[in-house]
Structures are given as C-alpha cells and as structure tokens.
C-alpha cells in the first residue's frame, strides 16, 4: 500500500492562492486506507479551506469528489464536468494520481495536497511503517523477509552499522528497530543465520532503469 501524508497547510495555501474555485479530488484506494486522501480527508481539507481566516485569504469555493483510483485515466474521466467548473484542482492522491489528473486535464493547474512517502503497512490503527522501497531487486529471500534496503536507515546489505542503540534500536531514532537486529532474530529463529554470514555484493541500481517502464507479456 502506498502511504502518504497531507502537506503542511502553508504550502497548500501558497499553491492555491491565485484561485477562487477549486476541486478537491480524493482517491479511494491507497491514500484512503492510510487516512490521507479518501473521502473523509477530502471533506476535512475542503472544510478547512472554506474556514480559512488567515491573513489576506479571500473566500474560495470548494468542490469535493473522490474517485476509485486516481491513477486510472478512465476513472479520472468521471471528474471532467466538475474540473470544467473550477480554476484549479487540488489532488489528494499519490504522485501517480496527481500526474494522471494533470495529464487528463492539461488546461487546468493540478496541485498535490499530500506528500507520497513510502510503501508500507499499518502497525496498528493509524500508524504506518515503511516496508518496501520499490528497488526492483528484491533481497527478502536472504534476510528472513525483512527488507534492509528501506528498514535499515542506511540501506546496508551486510549487517548492522556500529550505531545500533541499546536494545537493538536504530542509530537515528530510538523508536525504530534496527532492521539488522530484526533480521538476526528472525534468521536465528529459523536456524538460517548462515544467510547473514554470507557476503553480498553491492546493489545493482540498474535493476529498474529510471524512469521505470514495465511491459507485461502480451497475451
């Protein structure tokens, strides 16, 4: 699941400053699940913008709409009539959704209202943690199913750095676990520590040629 979080209000305010009528476009897929851009969040942001009393702010009118997946042109198409009515679109979808929207409505400015942050999973209600960095060269078979590329702050492949904090926490954040300590414990439990003793050569950063493009086998 793609995880995102709302941008700071000041940033949003600057983006939309010249416009009087806006469409807030939500997406009912990933960003809805992570409480960043579903129908509820669209409603909250719309209400905030209507209430905006900060200095120099003029009254704006805000339309709200949420589509099933904003990264699908056909689904975004549903919004055409509404987009026609407004001066600009503020999208609460991930970067992919914002760009789809921008491509579909080339004559309208489309702005991102959220920062797309990572691919992750919920640890509990309302808390998401990063799990995958879409590196294109999956390493999980060697690490007991724990990704060192994103869950280690330094993306190390050959074991922990010397900065592990007491109790196996990360050098940069005592709230976060050291991925390599987790990997050690998992592999130890599975009696597969030999995997950790192996040497792994430097990563292949060409695994995904940027910009990424994948053609499925034609049926």
């Amino acid at each position: 699941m793609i995880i995102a979080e709302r941008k700071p209000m000041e940033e949003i305010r600057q983006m939309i400053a010249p416009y009087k009528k806006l469409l807030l476009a939500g997406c009912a897929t990933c960003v809805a699940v992570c409480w960043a851009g579903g129908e509820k969040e669209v409603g909250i942001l719309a209400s905030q913008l209507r209430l905006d009393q900060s200095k120099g702010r003029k009254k704006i009118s805000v339309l709200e709409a949420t589509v099933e997946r904003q990264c699908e042109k056909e689904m975004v198409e549903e919004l055409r009539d509404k987009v026609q009515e407004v001066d600009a679109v503020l999208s609460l979808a991930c970067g992919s959704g914002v760009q789809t929207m921008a491509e579909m409505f080339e004559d309208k400015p489309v702005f991102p209202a959220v920062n797309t942050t990572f691919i992750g999973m919920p640890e509990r209600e309302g808390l998401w943690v990063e799990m995958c960095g879409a590196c294109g060269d999956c390493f999980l078979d060697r690490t007991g199913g724990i990704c060192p590329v994103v869950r280690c702050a330094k993306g190390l492949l050959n074991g922990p750095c010397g900065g592990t904090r007491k109790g196996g926490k990360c050098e940069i954040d005592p709230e976060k676990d050291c991925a390599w300590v987790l990997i050690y414990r998992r592999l130890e439990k599975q009696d597969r520590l030999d995997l950790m003793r192996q040497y792994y050569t430097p990563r292949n950063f060409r695994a995904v040629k940027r910009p990424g493009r994948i053609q499925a086998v034609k049926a």
Partner: protein
Amino acid sequence: METKIGIFLCNCGEAIRNIDFAATKEEVAQIPGVTCVNLSSNLCLKEGKEKMISCIKKENIDRVVVAACSPDFKEHFFRQVLESAGLNGHLFSMANIREQCSWAHEGDVTVKAVEVIKMAVNRARLLQPVKKKKFPVNREVLVFGGGFAAINAALQLSRVGLRTTLLEREAILGSETVELGSLCGFDISSMMSEVEGDENIEILTSAEVTAAAGKIGGFTVRIRKGGEEISHKYGAVVLATGYQTKLALEPELKSDINIVSQEKLCRMLEDPNLEIRPRTIGFMFDFSDENSRLSTLATLNNALAAKQKWDSEIYVFCKSVKVDGPGAEKLYREARDCGVVFLKCEARPRITADNGRVKIEAKDVFLGEDTILACDLLVAEELLLPSEGTEALSSLLNIRRDSRGFYQDENVHLYPVASEKKGIFFVGGCRGDLDLSRVLTDVSSVVVSVYELLSSGNILTEVEKVKADPQKCVACLTCIRVCPHDAIQLVRVDGGKEVAEVFDLACDACGVCAAICPAKAIKFRAYRDEEILAQIEAIGES
C-alpha cells in the same frame, strides 16, 4: 418523494411557561415539509397518545417530531406510539424544549424553542426506518470455572432451561472451594452432587480451551480434554474463574509454622490432632491495597473460631475494616465483644522473626503510640490476584482486563457483569473482591441476562442500524481495529472483494466506526453526517 412531517408540541401540563406556543406553532408550520402542527398539554397521557395516532393516520404523516420534554425521558414511549400508528419507530425526532430550553433559561425562550424544533425537523426529514430481525442463537452456555460462582451459575442456568457446560481446568470441581464453604457456612458437597446429577449440565474437568471465535449467539470454542479436541458452539459464555491469594510478606520472611495464610489457619482450626495451641495470634489486612473485603471476612470468621477453640488472645492490625457485606457488621461486633482487639494503623506494621515467635511493631492511629506485640502466630496479609490463566483466557476471548489483571467490567456502574463483548459475562472473584452475597447477586444478574438473550432461541434485534457500504468500503480495517465491542469483521461479498461487515447482534451502536471511517463507507442511521449536518444547519437560522 416529499416527506410529510407532523409536529406535536406539548407544554407538559403547563410546566413549560416561558415559550409562546401559539407563535411557535405558527413559525414551525412554515418549515418546508411540515404537514401539520398540533398543540397539546398531555401528549404522553392516554388521550394525547390517541390524538397523535389518529393525526398520523389522518394526515398520512411519515416523520414525527415531538417538541416537549427530554428524549431521555419519553423517546421510547413515543417510538411505541409511532409503531402503534403503523410507522417505523425510528422515523421520529424529539426537540427537547423543556429541560434544555424552557427550564434552563430565564425569560421568554420562544426563539430558541423554534430553533431547537427546526433542528429536530431537519433531522427528521432525513431519517430512515430501522428494521428488526430475528437471529437464531445457540441455546447452550459455556461456564468457565469450577468453584462456588461457576457451580451456582451452572445450576441456575440449568434451572431456567439452558443447557450448560462447566469447563474446569482442574481434575475435580470445587477443589479450592471446600475451605471457603466451611468458612462461610455453605455446603459445597451438596452443590456438587446436585451439579453432577443435573442432566442439563455437562461437566468437563481437566479441560481447557485452545481457540475461540464467533460472536454472541454463536461462539465456536475448541476444547481440549484428555488429548482430544472438540469444537462446540455456545450462545453465551460466562467466566467464573475466580481469584487466588498470595501472602504479602516482606522479602526476608516466608510463610512457616509461625506465619500462615488464612487457609492454613482454617485447616489448623479443623485439625483434631493439632498439638500446638497458639496463645497470641496477630492478623493483618488492608495495607497493600484496598481490595480487602474478602480478607476482612476471613479474619473475622477465623478470629472468632480461634477465640472459641483455643481461647487465644487476638490482635488485628489493619488500615480499615470493610464490613459492607450482609452480616459483616454483626461479625465485627461479635469479634469485638468476645475480646478481639482491633488496631488501626496507617503504615504497614514491621514484622520480624523473634526467637520462634513473630514480632509486630505498629503505630496505632488512635493511641498514637508504638505498639509491640510478640505473637505465636501471624496470619499474614493476603493479596487478591486473578487466578492463573486469566490472562491467557482473556486474550483468547479478546476481552480486556483492568490494571490489576481482573476482568474489566464494561462499566462497573451500569453493567457490572457484562463484558464489552456482547454475550460474554463475568461472575464472582474473577472480576474482583466480592463476598459471597455479591457473588450470588452476580450469578442472578448473569442468569437473567443470558436467559433474556438465549431462552427463545432467537434474538430480535435492529438490523443495519450501523452499516458499512460494501461499494465504498476500501477494507482498510480501521473500523475492525477500533470497534470497542468487537462487532465488525471482514467478509467476502459474493465470494469476491473483502469488505467490513457489522454484525448486528454484537453491535452496540456507538458510532465510533462511522466517525473514523476514512472512506466514509459506514453509515449510522439517525446519526449519519447528513442528519448531524442538517441539525447544525438549522442553528442560527432564527
């Protein structure tokens, strides 16, 4: 289709004096959708009710607003009036113009009253009917435990015709209840033979639960007994797993011939061959925590018995004596009358071993003096703890415990024996420091609740009051994680997409899920955003 709203104004037998009802009537009649406005002074009496019914029928009213007293007071009554007029009871909204308008302010409050009625009308316009449905339920009950509370619960449940399974971890029932019986004057053995002879009660000893799933009316429980596992369905679950005690002793001391528990003392008192005869006995309780009701009772009973049998000198050290149970005050008086000395101390007395005796040093609050007592026997303070396995069982059933590890009551004042999960109940010591009479009260209330739920084999309940729209649900699981009553689950619609589904029987209609749903997929009838916003929109109109 345009709704037809009927407004019924009532001045509550002229208890509402600062509202101009004529003006109000005129004003609210203008609200779009309002078909008729009636004025009454006794809406909740027989004639008022009859007038209401005939008006609803005559005018073809499909939404009713009553502007009168508090809905807390009469909402239920008016819903029934609607039902008798052939309308769904949920197509009803009440404007509280009495307690929260007329009586709360001085001077004329007509303007506010009109606005409060407008709020109710706005809401009424959007209300939807809530249907009721009968759900079949399993009529069997599973009772955990084998002590006083469990046996009593099983017997009473069986007596009201519900088949009951008693599930006990130990090899025999009542193994820890025998002393309690002699202490409190009841005969456990007759209870046990009654239970064993009851065809409606199945007894599973040396048995434990390995898994539990399902919700009220249909809990599926896997039970392991003697290497075999069986799966069985129960309509309700009663936890009567009791408590255990632990001596609260300083680390350097341990229980021995001089320092004993209440239970040990009981056995000593009953032992005909006992050679020693303690001349001085000290008792201690209520220092470590305030849950000392049971140790107080044990002390009073044991002190009296020791006085009678051994004629010992008895000193009781405590912070306070809790005698709030029936008969406890009398016991306390008896104990004092026959010479038991009670010393009230704020601080925990110092206990030291002293040449085969036990030295107790305490500061008596009333005397204000340090007291030193050397006694032959100290009956040490006992801590009350949840019985072993409470933690495991609670996590198996997914119910909460309090800070001391006992089962947490949903709300101790309103529902002392109900858990937050409908269909799971607690009785007796597993929910805290209860004396026997309280345990029996627990048993009775649980039996009544379970009987109400299961006796007919069906539960009539409102359906789809809280409902997740499968089209809008993005299966984020938020509602499932937050539901305080564990009433939402993930299901496949038509064997395909997974979505959240509210289980109507287990739902307690709090709306926490609706308020948190990021996809706005959960609708709570009568409290949907539309209905709340309609009320808000009426504010400030006047």
